[in-house]
């Protein structure tokens, strides 16, 4: 099945910079222009999901933060805690017996459950499947809040190497060489070849039962190698193809600046040039209303104090925004900057709408024509 490849916008940045909100806002801004958009959140926030009218699960659902754009905006917010069954269900679609066996394999359950990157792999597989089934103009992906977030770009390839290379066969064979009584491989002695030595080390680390379960898992996964390869190829085209666009997200807090510079370096290694860096909560100028109020607060101490407090916060924020902007100009000056203001609201839907409006003038730069 060949899929229509949409323009894919991948948002990357450190934690707490508003990546999830920015992704939703970009998607909304595109939907307002009449585009059909799918926004995918790898690290879903329940409240944001509810604000967009979607559930956190494995389905692509119509989303809305404004009544008039309903139907053009879709969201996929997979539940991290269901990654393990979801991954197996997709790979073993139409093979109930094999699926049941894998879901009983303790190695699969523990490894998959404990692996932090499992959820990202599952999200990619879900994206690839969604794109096969439905035509989207744009895909907006919100990556995990980490410096390693871009590692997921290479997961499909890494897993493919594991499946297609000699490793799986060798690992399966190793289990056969462990005898039925459960004795481990004999120490081959000083002069044995490197392979035999590695086998002995393996047996020393793992116990025989586990080795057999591991081999069974690889044998089962080998059954669906082709299906996996197909999904991996689609993800790779989405993430590293000619229609992929990377957007860095930063904010004046903690290590966000260092994270953005680090991610830029990683992207350069992947031969990707970010189309822009969004500086959230980086107001540029004092709001005119503050000046107006300052003149009228005389004689009202409580109001004066409130204005002073808000003014102080805005000023400090502006200074922090300027510092961030200067720092990024110095380090990654070639990447165009987009400063967005702080949006004072408690409701996530209001913040998404406000940010979408703030990003609209730069939409062509971020999303292309």
């Amino acid at each position: 099945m060949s899929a229509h490849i949409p323009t894919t916008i991948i948002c990357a940045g450190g934690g707490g910079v508003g990546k999830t909100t920015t992704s939703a806002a970009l998607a909304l801004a595109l939907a307002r222009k009449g585009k059909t958009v799918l926004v995918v959140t790898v690290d879903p926030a329940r409240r944001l999901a509810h604000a967009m009218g979607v559930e956190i699960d494995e389905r692509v659902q119509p989303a809305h933060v404004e009544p008039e754009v309903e139907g053009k905006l879709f969201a996929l917010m997979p539940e991290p805690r269901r990654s393990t069954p979801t991954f197996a269900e997709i790979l073993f679609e139409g093979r109930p017996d094999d699926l049941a066996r894998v879901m009983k394999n303790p190695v699969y359950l523990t490894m998959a459950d404990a692996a932090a990157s499992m959820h990202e792999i599952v999200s990619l597989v879900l994206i690839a499947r969604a794109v096969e089934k439905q035509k989207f103009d744009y895909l907006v992906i919100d990556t995990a809040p980490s410096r390693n977030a871009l590692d997921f770009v290479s997961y499909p390839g890494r897993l493919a190497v594991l499946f297609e290379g000699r490793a799986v066969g060798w690992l399966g064979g190793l289990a056969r060489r462990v005898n039925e009584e459960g004795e481990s491989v004999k120490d081959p002695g000083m002069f044995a070849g490197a392979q035999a030595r590695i086998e002995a080390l393996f047996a020393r680390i793992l116990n025989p039962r586990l080795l057999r379960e591991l081999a069974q898992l690889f044998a089962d996964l080998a059954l669906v190698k082709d299906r996996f390869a197909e999904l991996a190829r689609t993800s790779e085209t989405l993430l590293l193809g000619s229609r992929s666009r990377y957007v860095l997200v930063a904010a004046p807090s903690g290590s966000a600046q260092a994270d953005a510079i680090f991610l830029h370096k990683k992207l350069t290694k992947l031969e990707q040039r970010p189309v822009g860096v969004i500086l959230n909560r980086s107001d540029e100028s004092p709001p005119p209303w503050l000046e107006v109020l300052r003149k009228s607060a005389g004689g009202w101490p409580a109001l004066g104090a409130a204005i002073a407090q808000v003014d102080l916060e805005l000023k400090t924020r502006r200074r922090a925004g300027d510092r961030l902007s200067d720092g990024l100009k110095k380090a990654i000056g070639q990447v165009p900057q987009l400063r967005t203001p702080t949006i004072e609201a408690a409701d996530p839907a209001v913040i998404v709408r406000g940010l979408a409006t703030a990003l609209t003038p730069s939409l062509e730069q971020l999303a292309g024509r």
Partner: protein
Amino acid sequence: MSQVASGSQADTSGEAHTPLGPLVLVTGKGGVGKTSIAAGLAEAAARRDGAAMLIEFGDGESGKRILGRNSKVIHRVVDPRVAMEMAIANLLGSTILAKLFLGNFAVRPMLRAAPAMRELAMLECVRLYADEVPGKLVVVDMPATGHGLTWLRLPVQMRDMFASGPIHDLAARIVDRLVAPSRCSVVVVTLPERLVLSETVELCRALDREVKLPPARLVVNRFPSELAPEAWDQTRALIARGGPEGEAAKELLRVMDARRTAREETLTILRELDPKKGSHVTSKLLFPESLEDLGAIDVASWLEARGAA
């Protein structure tokens, strides 16, 4: 007056704070100020006990910056690759064998594709570092990726999956010395924002239920300071006058309301963790909004003043 000193009246907990340690795991979403709180706790302990350790994941830049140059805190950074080598060398009793093993064509892709092993190795590395300072407080700034819970559940899962053998022993060692409720305290850091807070409540409950580690402290960072109630009356009076002033006052009212909502929502959501509702989270700390980057010494002083260090 420093920003840190103000706003302390807003704390929800009048109870004495339970003592921490000997190992403190600081967890929370990225960007909530986890590293500042972790560094502050280590700094306070170093002042009290003469030494303490801060263990960080990643590149260690932010810990170094927050601690400052003159800190007595011993700073260690866990690098995934080094951790894997350390752990395997410990298992096999030889660094050379570990290098040979990790360099193997089948082992390498398997470990890269099965990161549970890498995480276990990183925890083992934390254990080895912590052993360097017996009797001193060790604060771990946990990684922001994944669910904070995954890291704490992993050693038990691995111990039970590997019924015997060296990995079982390794996992069991980590369970006993690192994540056992008698050994470690969990500190959860969060922000006064709806999205972040509701996730935090879920995390606190799960920590209690699933790994028997209810947070010893819950710190809400960047809590906005309180404004006088009269400010609202006066702003409304200006709005009633109309004209450009009235329009400007509307904008101010919006900002003031947003700050107040953040305060109120935080307190409401935190009430879900009331001990009367069966929650074991007794220490809730509201760290005042301080817009500039704080150093470890500021945070340490604030925690000491609250008896929470």
